[in-house]
């Protein structure tokens, strides 16, 4: 089994897929199934762990090991699994409600610890499975069943939160950008440590069109900034726009490339030890700003598992494997005859 060359089909389980027609989740599933065989990991060594939500049904459709756990706890379940079994490739699939509402704490702690997990966060900016309430990423003012007059809460910037929580790998893509999505999945697989990917996903039933600007062929190039490492932050139909640094205000702003001003050109550096640029990009949101897609940050730091394993090894090297006899017969024992 393990030696065969795998194909996309090998990753399709026997379960009928049950998302709504037109749901962005289908495209993501297809791309994941497409990229998996390329990774050279045996199917039995892959585990998909999810919480609860439409997105979280994902594991049922992957012909790998899978665990559809409880709402918000997938990062914690996966942390335990991977600490116990660092030989496995463990993927977490979650939604914006699952990951950022009830599960926010586990997510930030996983990122902080740099547990070697791949996180796919399907952000449709709404609670799909419970039929359409606003989520922590919903735009302020969004009208839903639980916010009939518009939601009052400001949304999280998903990537800013991840960066604020010390993430070593942070990226973003869109369900409809097939190639880019594939590329991001590959990048995720190759990162050692917590690798966090936000996938902007359309929910045609409860939040149709939130990402329309990024999908409409006519205008999308003005709204998408595809990050290229080492390159300036150029976008727009004729590459005529650029995000540049205004040093007086200490912020990126959208500039016309043909008009020169006082600002500083910024070249993307995903490996910068300091997360400042990544953070500016994560926050590059607003009317005139494009949405940055790609890898905002990718730095290699020791993973939680590496450090934990190394400690165990060091102890065993220094003092030998613990035996039952040694465990029981402590030096302060005494004898009764």
């Amino acid at each position: 089994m393990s030696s065969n060359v795998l194909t996309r089909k090998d990753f399709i389980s026997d379960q009928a897929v049950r998302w709504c027609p037109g749901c962005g989740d289908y495209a993501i599933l297809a791309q994941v199934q497409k990229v998996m065989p390329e990774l050279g990991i045996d199917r039995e060594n892959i585990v998909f762990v999810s919480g609860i939500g439409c997105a979280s049904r994902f594991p049922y459709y992957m012909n790998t090991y899978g665990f559809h756990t409880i709402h918000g706890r997938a990062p914690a379940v996966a942390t335990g699994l991977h600490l116990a079994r660092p030989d496995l490739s463990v993927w977490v699939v979650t939604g914006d409600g699952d990951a950022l509402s009830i599960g926010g704490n586990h997510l930030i702690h996983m990122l902080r610890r740099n547990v070697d997990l791949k996180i796919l966060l399907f952000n449709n900016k709404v609670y799909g499975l419970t039929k359409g309430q606003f989520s922590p990423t919903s735009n302020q003012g969004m009208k839903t069943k639980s916010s009939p007059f518009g939601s009052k809460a400001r949304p999280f910037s998903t990537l800013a939160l991840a960066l604020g929580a010390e993430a070593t790998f942070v990226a973003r893509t869109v369900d409809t950008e097939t190639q880019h999505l594939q590329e991001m999945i590959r990048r995720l697989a190759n990162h050692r440590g917590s690798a966090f990917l936000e996938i902007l996903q359309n929910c045609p039933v409860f939040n149709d069109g939130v990402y329309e600007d990024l999908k409409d062929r006519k205008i999308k190039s003005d709204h998408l900034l595809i990050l290229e490492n080492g390159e300036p932050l150029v976008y727009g139909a004729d590459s005529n726009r650029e995000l540049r640094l205004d040093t007086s205000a200490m912020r990126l702003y959208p500039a016309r490339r043909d008009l020169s001003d006082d600002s500083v050109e910024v070249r993307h550096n995903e490996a910068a030890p300091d997360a400042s640029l990544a953070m500016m990009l994560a926050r590059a949101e607003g009317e005139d700003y494009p949405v940055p897609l790609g890898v905002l940050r990718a730095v290699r730091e020791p993973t939680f598992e590496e450090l934990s394993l190394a400690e165990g090894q060091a102890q065993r090297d220094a003092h030998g494997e613990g035996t039952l006899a040694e465990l029981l017969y402590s030096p302060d024992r005494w004898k009764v005859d």
Partner: protein
Amino acid sequence: MSGNDEVPVEEIPSVVIRLVGDSGDGMQLTGGELTRAAALAGNDIATFPDFPAEIRAPAGSLAGVSGFQLQFSSGEIFTAGDAPDVMVVMNPAALRTNIRDLEKGGLLIVDTGAFKAKNLELAGYAENPLEDGSLADYRLVVVDISKHVTLTLKGEGLSTKDVFRTRNFYALGLLFWLYGRSPEAELEAIHRKFAKRPEIANANSKVFQAGFNFGETAELFESAYRVAPAKLPAGEYRNITGNEASALAILAAGRLADKPIFYGSYPITPASDILHYLSAQPRYGVTAFQAEDEIAAVTASIGASFGGSIAITGTSGPGFALKQEGIGLAVIAELPLVVINVQRAGPSTGMPTKPEQSDLMQALYGRNGESPVAIVAPSTPADCFDSMLDAIRIAVEHMCPVVYLSDATLANGAEPWRIPAPESLQPIQVNHRIEADGFSPYIRDPNTLARVWAVPGTPGLEHRIGGLEKEDGSGNVSYDPENHQHMTHIRQAKIDRIADRLPPAEIFGDPEGDLLLVGWGSTFGPLRQATIALRDQGHAVSHMHLRFLNPLQSNVSEALLKFRRVLVAEMNMGQLRTLLRDRFLVDAKGLNKMQGQPFQIREVVHAARELLTEVPAETIK
């Protein structure tokens, strides 16, 4: 052995000593040393440490009093004693909060040096109780320990504070003399313990010796005492607390099953020490994970269990409440998991350092839906070892969560533990499925009904599990009405069948009679000792202790019927009683203590006597 020739030495069967002082006075340390000396001398021992909730309440305050009670004996004992025969008091606050417990005529040793105006005021004494005659009921022995240590350490170059902190070793020396313990082993121990600060080691040794000598030379006591060694079964012994024994068993289980151990926990009193113990033992293949909260602790453990580790998660009351949703996942996923709850007094934050047994119902019923789990409860600190091994065996062999209900008394209490020979411990059988043919994740062992444990990494067994209702066999998500009924029964039957492997509940005393005392958990000691006392008094009383609360052992029903009366004594409002009444329709009465303190033997004896003489049941409910 040295001794004052002029003081007679009296042989006594046992003694109960309580050391009390400020949290900063080192009472726990002193108690531990005294315990070790008694153990090494072959006495049976039992201890009950009782510390305040504050880390360090202001010195001298009532809230800052810390106590350690110890009984050592030449016969078998099960508790640290109802009331102390001897009390050592290091400051006025300690006197005030503890003196009412001392037996009349008991020996009261006091450091007069600490009875200064400020301390008296902090303790709320208008007058010095050492001088106003209020202690006339006791054999008062006053020693100005504070002055003695200052003199002893003059010229050693220590700060006043450091000198003051040696007082407990002076008291220890005095007690060593009083009970004829050899000082040599202790002097060695002091040097080991303070190896990193030789000046302190030196000071403590000097002071300890001074205390010992003072006992010998001053004519303080009418008599010195000896407690003969107990006739313990032959073997190697060590002193062990409940938390240590639980942790040791967890490590032993890893070796016995030849499997890695995963321990997921979030610190909480009084469970944290298990985490501490395991964190220091990576050599035994344990991964101790300090999670961000209890929910992460339990779910990470479930993840590790899915991955094939023996997974354990530990906490106390409020943390146990937080874990319930996760436990429900383990129930439906049918994964092995041991959940330790070191119970403490509730509700809510309650009295976090005090014991209680009020989470039995929570363990049985604390989750949504019908989600049965097995429940095991250790009875004594040393029994924590066996009980934990039982819990782990049940979890992995029956593929279910097992709740392990310890409590604060067991967790911190110590007793001598006869170390089992490593080869006497049964290996733990773990069979991971590897055969792909005919596999599906919810096929079961026809006897136990346990499903297969197939772990990631096994080629051909790729499968998905989760919290939605499963179709039996295939494990596919199912909303089929009959399947749900079937699975509900299967999950219950799986737990019920654990009873097949359990030994019958042991009945101490005759198998029938006037009164059956029933208990579980840490009440074992006082109940057993009360039963002995009642039988000595000629009553037809027996004692049934339940180590397994779900399922109940199969002889329980029959046993209950053989007694005219049943009294269930618990540190709660009657949770086991509720269970027995529901299951067996037996009119069990309750003795229910909710004081954050273990039962005293006399309380149990008293309640039993009342019931035996047919006093209306209401008064002891």
